């Protein structure tokens, strides 16, 4: 690991702590977040050359506080000009606070920040962007590259997100107990969204986007450290580890996708699988079961099969039946149909898929066509299967999926 990489890891770890310290000291989450971002950028430039300061956290707090003071002064000056009255200026009170005055580690700051950045008033895209910057310590430029949008656009989204949070009257405090389960569910959704963005990235120019999986796992790990008894937090972390373990085998060097059944399982990450299995096993034993734990359990059954043919499909079918009860959705039904086909035959799977035809939510979605094509192929109807693969290929907006689906269709050409 290079010096710059070490500095980057340290900055990401310190970012939410420094931001928490500033917000507790000054309030004004939006301005503090900008000030911390500037301090992080300054450190990213200076530390690799000048060396990491003895007290990196205090250094960041001091630099960010100075930025904060400048901003408050500038804001005060602007108001004085505009209002031509002596502005109430809190600036003097903010000059040079003792850097170590409130540096005691506040484990809950990271959690409070996560709740704030995943505020329900925000769109998922804004929740993701703000979480990556304020909690993850990524720069606006890094977030922009990961989502393939111009940096100015991403800066605008983050700034708008902070305004929205402010307008919603949110404070830097944990949500009230009655809101907490719902708010935590949103946090988990946001982390899973970040993970999936990175996981879907294939090779080549997408590699920076792929780092989002690492970041999502890091944040989920931190959340699990803060809430060790929450089964769904453990379940999400396990699900990420068990899914990411297959990443080395899921694409070929040219970026084409390899379906689960055809992956070279010797390339799966055995350590990540062991950690994921241990996490999900422990959480299922002691916490009330939730959808992330069940999805992690399904991933674990796949990951523990040495060969695709060894997969314990009856076990996976039972888990999908449970998932349908806990968190029904058309996508769950789609995967349930595959499991059903593997246990009771392709016709049983096709029957279950037929129930989705009247469900508007998946109508015209390429995955419905892709799964139907696969089951029709298993059922020995290559003509119909080919037609469904082609329909799926037309509907997907993913280039590697399109290539995969067209390849499947071409294999069935008479």
């Amino acid at each position, binding site marked *: 690991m290079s010096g710059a990489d070490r500095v980057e890891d340290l900055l990401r770890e310190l970012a939410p702590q420094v931001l928490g310290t500033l917000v507790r000291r000054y309030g004004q989450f939006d301005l503090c977040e900008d000030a911390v971002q500037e301090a992080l950028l300054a450190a990213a430039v200076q530390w690799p050359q000048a060396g990491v300061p003895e007290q990196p956290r205090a250094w960041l707090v001091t630099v960010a506080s100075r930025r904060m003071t400048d901003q408050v002064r500038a804001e005060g000056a602007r108001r004085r000009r505009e209002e031509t009255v002596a502005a109430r200026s809190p600036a003097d009170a903010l000059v040079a606070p003792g850097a170590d005055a409130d540096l005691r580690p506040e484990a809950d700051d990271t959690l409070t920040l996560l709740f704030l950045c995943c505020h329900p008033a925000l769109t998922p895209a804004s929740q993701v962007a703000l979480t990556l910057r304020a909690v993850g310590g990524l720069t606006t430029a890094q977030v922009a590259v990961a989502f393939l949008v111009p940096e100015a656009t991403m800066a605008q989204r983050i700034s*708008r997100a902070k305004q929205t949070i402010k307008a919603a009257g949110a404070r830097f405090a944990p949500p009230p107990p009655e809101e907490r389960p719902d708010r935590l569910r949103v946090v988990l959704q946001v982390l899973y969204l970040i993970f999936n963005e990175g996981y*879907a*990235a294939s090779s080549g120019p997408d590699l920076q*986007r792929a780092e989002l999986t690492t970041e999502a796992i890091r944040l989920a790990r931190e959340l699990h450290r803060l809430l060790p008894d929450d089964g769904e937090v453990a379940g999400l972390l396990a699900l990420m580890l068990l899914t990411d373990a297959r990443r080395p085998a899921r694409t070929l060097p040219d970026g084409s*996708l390899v*379906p689960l059944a055809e992956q070279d399982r010797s390339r799966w990450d055995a350590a990540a699988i062991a950690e994921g299995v241990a996490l999900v096993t422990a959480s299922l034993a002691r916490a009330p079961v939730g959808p992330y734990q069940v999805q992690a359990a399904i991933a674990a059954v796949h990951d523990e099969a040495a060969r695709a043919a060894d997969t314990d499909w009856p076990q996976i079918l039972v888990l999908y039946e449970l998932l349908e009860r806990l968190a029904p959705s058309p996508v769950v039904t789609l995967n349930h149909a595959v499991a059903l086909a593997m246990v009771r035959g392709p016709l049983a799977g096709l029957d279950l898929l037929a129930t989705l035809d009247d469900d508007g939510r998946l109508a015209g979605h390429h995955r419905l066509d892709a*799964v139907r094509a696969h089951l029709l192929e298993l059922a020995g109807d290559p003509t119909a299967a080919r037609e469904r693969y082609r329909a799926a290929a037309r509907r*997907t*907006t*993913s280039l590697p999926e399109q290539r995969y689906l067209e390849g499947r269709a071409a294999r069935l050409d008479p």
Partner: protein
Amino acid sequence: MKYVVLIYSNPAAWSALPAGEADRVLQVHNDLIDELTGSGELLNIYRLAHAGNARTVALRDGVPVVTDGPFGESKEVLASLWEIDVERLDRALAIAGVLTPHATVEVRALMDAAGMEM
């Protein structure tokens, strides 16, 4: 989801609009640009030069040959192209709807280099 919104209009019909109408339509466009910039949904906007300046390049006997045109005075031609990033298709269609006065608007999804194995 990233989409391009393609705006086709007829230059002759556009020139023949009553006084103030073109300004009114442009104001609608500018207000929309402000809104989409503020929300972080607008990624890029390309305004195309007059179609009378277009050149067409095509192979003839295995050699690329350049011809003038196609001229668009009497038919709808591509006038501008907006690249947007929105939560859902509905939102892209609502944006397109605002741009429909004196234009035909096409919404196309952009392909992504990422994908999920099946």
